[in-house]
């Protein structure tokens, strides 16, 4: 290989390292988004439960 192989290797290594780091960043953001979504779901479930408890109970079918 030529005298400038070090530069070539450095350029291609940096490209793939940066791409890998960006994929990792996207993956971490997705994990944070999933956690936030679970919190929202829990809050929504609590709210539904709260409003259901405030209402008179519905008659059961067939009763």
């Amino acid at each position, binding site marked *: *290989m*030529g*005298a*400038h*192989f070090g*530069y*070539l290797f*450095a*350029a*291609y290594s*940096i*490209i793939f390292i*940066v*791409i890998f780091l*960006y994929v990792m960043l*996207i993956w971490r*953001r*997705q994990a944070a*988004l999933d956690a*936030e*979504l679970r919190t*929202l779901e829990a*809050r*929504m479930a609590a*709210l539904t439960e*709260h*409003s259901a408890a*405030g209402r008179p109970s519905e008659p059961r079918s067939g009763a």
Partner: protein
Amino acid sequence: MNNPTIRNWLGFSTLALMLVSLFMVFDYVPPDAEMGIAQLIFYFHVPLAWVAFASFGLVAIAGIFYLWLGDQLWDDLGYAAAETGMVFCTLVIVTGSIWAKPIWGTWWTWDSRLTMTFILWLMYGGYLMLRASADDTPQVARFGAVIGIVAAMDVPIVIVSVRMWRTIHPAVLVTKQGTHGLEDPRMVWTLLVSLTAFTLLWAWFLMLRFTQLRTRSRMAWLAGRIALATAVASDPK
């Protein structure tokens, strides 16, 4: 853009084409007679520039539509495109600098194309700093749209700078004499495969980030509704 099948297909196609283009760069294409092995950086440097410019063009288009329609979707698309464009623009500058050292004997020179690319990088850096530091309000989105549109005006200047001003940056694809600088057909094929690989990578990144930003926007809206409903439910009156 929310289809996971398309996202997965894009991811695997990108990986496969990246491997093919790497094989072509290191085993198939002949190195340039003048620049030697360092010229092989070109086959990833040019596609990186293409996807960076395409990203910034998309930021401008999304910005125009956001200012016109006021739909959050366009703001999310512009933000996603600016971020991916910034990643690729950074790589263009870094790989260009590494290529410059053995050929020009310096890591950096204030050449017209390099300077205009650096200005482009700074402007989109400013855009991303604004978006990261401020809350997601319509006003910030409007500022972002305007910055994105103004900054994209630098893209055509970067492209024509090698013909407009005296520069040491080579005009490889279309030379100053109007011919293309890739004499060997293998060079053209390698460049085309790399261009396709990076276009797919760009589309994949864009899709992932856009989907995340859309989800975040919808979740912010839902959180507001839940907070309102909670306040109403806890009000004794």
